[in-house]
C-alpha cells in the first residue's frame, strides 16, 4: 500500500511542478486506462441493464383468466357502450359483470376454447371473472366517464386506444413497486408518448385539461 501511495504522490507532485515526463505518462496511463476500462464496463453493464433488464424486472406479467376477443364482440354487439355502459345514476359500469355476459353466453355459442372455459368455469359456477383491468386507476383517483364521454364528447380511443380492434388480450403488467398497471404508467419506459392513450398519469390528464378547458383543474376534480 505504502509503495502505491508514494507513487501516486510522486506522480502528482511531478505533474504539478515539472510537467509530465514520458515515463511517468506511461505509468499514469495504465492507471487511467484501468479506470476508463472500469468506467466503460460499469457504464455498459448499468446502461444495458437499465434499458433492458430493469423494465422487465419492474413489471410482473399476469395473464388474463382466458382470452377475450374484443373485435369479435364489437362486430356482434356494436359499439363499446353495448357492454361498457352508463348506469342510470351516471356512473360507469366498466367491465361487464357475469350477469350481463350470461344474457348471450348462458350456453356455449361459439367454438373457441376460451368461451368453453368461460362457460364451464364461470357461467356454470356463477363466479365473476377476475379480469385484470389495464386502465384501473389507484384509489385516490376519481374519474368521470360521463364528463368525458357524454360531456366532452370524447371517444373511447382517445384514452383506451384501439383495444376494440384487438383479438387477443395482452398480458397485464403490474408495477412491482407501486402496484399500478403499466397502461397507467406508460408503455414506454422512458416516458415518451406517441399516442394520447399511451399513458394515463396525472400529467397526461392535466395536459389535456389545460388544452381543452384552459386550466389543469382543481385537485378535487380528479382526486377523492
Amino acid at each position, binding site marked *: 500500500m505504502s509503495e502505491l501511495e508514494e507513487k501516486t504522490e510522486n506522480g502528482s507532485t511531478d505533474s504539478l511542478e515539472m510537467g509530465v515526463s514520458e515515463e511517468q505518462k506511461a505509468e499514469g496511463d495504465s492507471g487511467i486506462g484501468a479506470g476508463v476500462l472500469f468506467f466503460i464496463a460499469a457504464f455498459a453493464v448499468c446502461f444495458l441493464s437499465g434499458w433492458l433488464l430493469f423494465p422487465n424486472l419492474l413489471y410482473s406479467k399476469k395473464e388474463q383468466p382466458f382470452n377475450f376477443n374484443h373485435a369479435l364482440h364489437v362486430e356482434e354487439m356494436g359499439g363499446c357502450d353495448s357492454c361498457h355502459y*352508463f348506469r*342510470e*345514476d*351516471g*356512473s360507469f359500469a366498466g367491465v361487464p359483470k357475469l350477469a350481463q355476459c350470461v344474457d348471450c353466453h348462458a350456453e356455449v355459442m361459439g367454438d373457441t376454447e376460451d368461451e368453453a372455459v368461460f362457460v364451464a368455469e364461470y357461467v356454470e359456477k356463477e363466479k365473476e371473472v377476475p379480469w385484470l383491468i389495464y386502465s384501473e386507476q*389507484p*384509489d*385516490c383517483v*376519481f374519474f*368521470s366517464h*360521463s*364528463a368525458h364521454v*357524454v*360531456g366532452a364528447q370524447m371517444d373511447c380511443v382517445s384514452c383506451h386506444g384501439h383495444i376494440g380492434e384487438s383479438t387477443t388480450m395482452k398480458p397485464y403488467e403490474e408495477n412491482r413497486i407501486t402496484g399500478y398497471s403499466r397502461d397507467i404508467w406508460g408503455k414506454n419506459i422512458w416516458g415518451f408518448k406517441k399516442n394520447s392513450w399511451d399513458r394515463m398519469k396525472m400529467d397526461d390528464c392535466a395536459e389535456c385539461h389545460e388544452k381543452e*378547458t*384552459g*386550466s389543469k383543474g*382543481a*385537485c*378535487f*376534480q380528479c*382526486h*377523492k
Partner: protein
Amino acid sequence: MTQQNHGNAHKFGMVIDLDKCTGCGSCMVACMSENNVPFKEDESNKKDSITWMRVYKLTNGKSFPDTDVCYLPRPCMHCGGKGDHGHSPCVSVCPATATDYDYGTGIVSQIYTRCFGCRYCMGACPYHARFFNWWDPKWPEGMEEYLSPDVSPRMRGVVEKCSFCFHRYQAAKDKAYLEERDTVAEEEYQTACTQACPSGAITFGDLNNPDHAVHQLVNPDPHHCGRPRNPKAFRLLERLETNPKVYYISEREWVRKAGDNYLDGEWEKAKMKKTKGHE
C-alpha cells in the same frame, strides 16, 4: 392559479340554524359513516379525535337558572380568504399543494396522497377543522366491509378534513352529464350531514344562486365577500377576513356574539356598524 369561470362559478356553502340544532350528533356520525372516518379505542382525547364535523357546546356563562346552552356544528368553513380570492389560510401555507381552492365551486380540497403531514395547514386553520392521522386507521376485523369507495381511506401521517362531500357533487354531475344537463339541481347535491340532520338545521347549496335556500337565508353581500345581510346570521371569526362559506343563524344575541372574540365594547360597535351598513 387561474380563476376559471369566476363570473358564473358556484360558491357552495352551508347555513346552520343554531336554534334548530339540538346537539344530537347525527351530523357527526353521518359524516363519519359517509367519509370512512376511522375510530380508535379511546376517542375521549378530543385533540386527536378525527371528526370532520364536530358539534361544540357553548354556554352563555350565566349562573343557574339563567344559564343557556347552544350547540354549534363545525364543518370545514371552506374559507375564501381575504377578499374572497381563494387564499384560504390553509391553502396559502401548504408547501405540497395538497390542498387547493376550487374557483369553480369554492371548495377547499385535501388530497391525502399529496399531503406529507407537515401540519402547517392545521396551525393556519383558525377553526380547528383539520385533523392529523397520528396512526394508521384500523377497523375491527370485518368492519372494513362497510367502507365506501367514494372516499379513499387515509393513511398515517396525512391531514384530513371536511370536503363538503365533494364526491356527492361528482356523482350528481355524472348524472347531469348523462342526462345532458348543464346544471346540478339544489337537491341533487347535499352533504351527508345536511341530509341526516333530523332537525333540518343544516341547509346546503350555492350561495351565488339566488334561488337556493342558503342564499335566501343569509342574503350574502357580494360587495363584502359574502358577509351576511341577514342580521341574525353570522360567520365565525368574521373579523379575520377568512370569509367562510359556513353561516350560522340564531335569534339569540349571546350566540351571535360568541361567533367572534370581542373585547369589551367591541360587540356593541360591531352591532352598530352592521345595522348602519344595511340602512
